[in-house]
């Protein structure tokens, strides 16, 4: 099996889906000739041409809106938003149009589209190139929200997203694009949207995370293992709809839960996981549910030390694990 980067896995998934189904196309700013700001679509314009890898004017509401229309028509758009931070102009299209289409038409209309958006900080991008926005969308039935944390999942989940008959928001941890490497098999496979993944079995406590923070959580788990703390790690992968069963099963096993995400704490996705645990595994808990999340400030500041204070990292996660383990 070949070891590839996260971004290469994403590129491969799009390449294979474009080859498999002629209704699949990519639309976004500079996705064509330039190959995307992060170079996720490099080579696809040359291979599939400008009709299928479409450079859009700077107009996010229309990138998504056109995607919705084309999806209604029966096509399979992959809409690229250069940075998740630029998705806000398209918010109306996503929440009011894409998410409600199937429901309002009693299933006559479907929106089989994917919106890809790189999210997260740690690359010096500052206020408007670092946001984590999943919680804005995990509140909305009708949407599916996916955040991969490994090249294997990135490829398999993106292929599932393209084939899914519903709108899927696919948030990519941009800091991990080239940092996270992993084995990806040759040939066809998919990873289903829905199930979470127990990526490390353990007995003392469970850490729930996703995306870049899952990558850091695995490192933190290894670090505390040397101190005798045996951590179970669950990669949530699909945030909406969420896999309650895997969450509750793990908590009943370990009795302690820590939820880690980069997005800020208040109103963040971790609150939902905490509620699921409180409702479904209360009697199994040996400690209060803990959340470790980004600070409640409006954005990730630019200056390097400030960004570091904002961002979680393996050391901060390890410390939160130790505290919970001691409880």
């Amino acid at each position: 099996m070949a070891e590839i980067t996260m971004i290469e896995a994403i590129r491969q998934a799009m390449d294979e889906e474009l080859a498999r189904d002629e209704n699949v196309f990519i639309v976004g700013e500079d996705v064509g000739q330039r190959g995307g700001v992060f170079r996720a679509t490099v080579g696809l314009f040359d291979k599939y041409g400008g009709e299928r890898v479409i450079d859009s004017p700077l107009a996010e509401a229309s990138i998504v809106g056109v995607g919705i229309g084309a999806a209604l028509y029966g096509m399979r758009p992959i809409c690229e938003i250069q940075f998740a931070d630029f998705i806000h102009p398209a918010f109306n299209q996503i929440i009011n149009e894409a998410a409600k289409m199937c429901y309002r038409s009693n299933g006559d209309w479907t929106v089989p589209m994917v919106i890809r958006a790189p999210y997260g900080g740690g690359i010096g991008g500052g206020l408007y190139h670092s946001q984590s926005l999943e919680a804005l969308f995990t509140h909305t039935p009708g949407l599916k929200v996916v955040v991969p944390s490994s090249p294997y999942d990135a490829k398999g989940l993106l292929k599932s997203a393209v084939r899914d008959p519903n709108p899927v928001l696919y948030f990519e941890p941009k800091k991990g694009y080239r940092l996270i490497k992993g084995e990806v098999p040759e040939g066809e496979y998919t990873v289903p949207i829905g199930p979470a993944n127990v990526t490390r079995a353990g007995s003392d406590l469970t850490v729930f995370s996703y995306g870049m923070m899952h990558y850091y959580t695995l490192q933190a788990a290894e670090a505390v293992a040397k101190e005798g703390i045996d951590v179970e790690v669950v990669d949530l992968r699909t945030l909406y709809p969420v896999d309650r069963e895997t969450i509750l099963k793990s908590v009943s096993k370990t009795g302690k839960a820590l939820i880690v995400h980069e997005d800020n704490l208040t109103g963040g996705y971790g609150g939902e996981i905490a509620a699921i645990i409180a409702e479904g595994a209360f009697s199994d808990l040996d400690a209060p549910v803990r959340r470790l999340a980004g600070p409640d400030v409006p954005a990730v500041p630019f200056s390097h030390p400030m960004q570091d204070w904002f961002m979680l990292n393996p050391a901060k996660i390890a410390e939160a694990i130790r505290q919970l383990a001691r409880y």
Partner: protein
Amino acid sequence: MEKKEYLDLYHQMVAIRRMEERAAELYQQGKIGGFLHLYIGQEAVSTGLIAPRTPDDRVITAYRDHGVAYNCGLSAREIIAELLGKATGCSKGKGGSMHMADVKKNYWGGHAIVGAHLPLAAGLALGDLYSKTPGVTICMFGDGATNIGYFHEALNLSKVWNLPVLWVCENNQYGMGTAVDRASAVSDIRKKADGYAILNDEVDGMDVLAVKEASAKMLEEIRAGGGPRFLEINTYRFRGHSMGDPERYRKADEVHRYQENDPIGMFRKYLIAAGIASEEEIVKLEDVIEEEVRDAVEFAENSPEPAPEELYTNVYFETY
């Protein structure tokens, strides 16, 4: 125009150029992180545009904002310090390259979400209209920004409400890697203003004096109650969209052709040919600027990082 004014324009353009060159070096040394959008090639645009403004006139722009900041009176020191994310920067390190601002100088920033600041400009102008103050809001944006809805909404209502705003499109021929004609239904961007019955004009953005004259004229018309105006300034960015841009979307030849019309080189020649300043005087001025920028870099490098608590400050305004 007095000799001092000519030399002041030259000073500003050269200072911007030198700052940007040093910024590129600092970026390559890893001292500036994230994204850095240089203004090299476009110096005459903001220099000429802002020169005739009065202290009442506001300036608001996109993320390619270091030069604009300098033209608005921010010092090289606070600009470079901001690029390095230092506590002494104009945005105390919180903002960085794309989010410079100083409201005391009526410079309303640096905005990173393309097009999003146009309605804000209309709102600032509404304030001036409402309070019957003589200020005009000068709103700068790129050609790419004219394709997003915000642009069209803002232009339309600025005309309907007769707002004192000067819309300025810096047409540098590309939005990131996309040539204007690949993204915009009309390549002469000012024609979009026709759709909203806003009087418009174009000017050569490589000619600082022409830009200044066009700006002065429009500012006067707006100040007299004439409502919004639209100025398309044709220019070219000599460097990539941001640092690290592989620039596959244009040919080196094209860049060289534009570089032959370097706005700074041409203005320098003009100053000498027209007998406004001697070569010697200009070299002396260039030395002064060199020192100004060297000092700014030294200041910035020696400045402290922000304090950890700053992460949590100013989330809300506490006292009114």
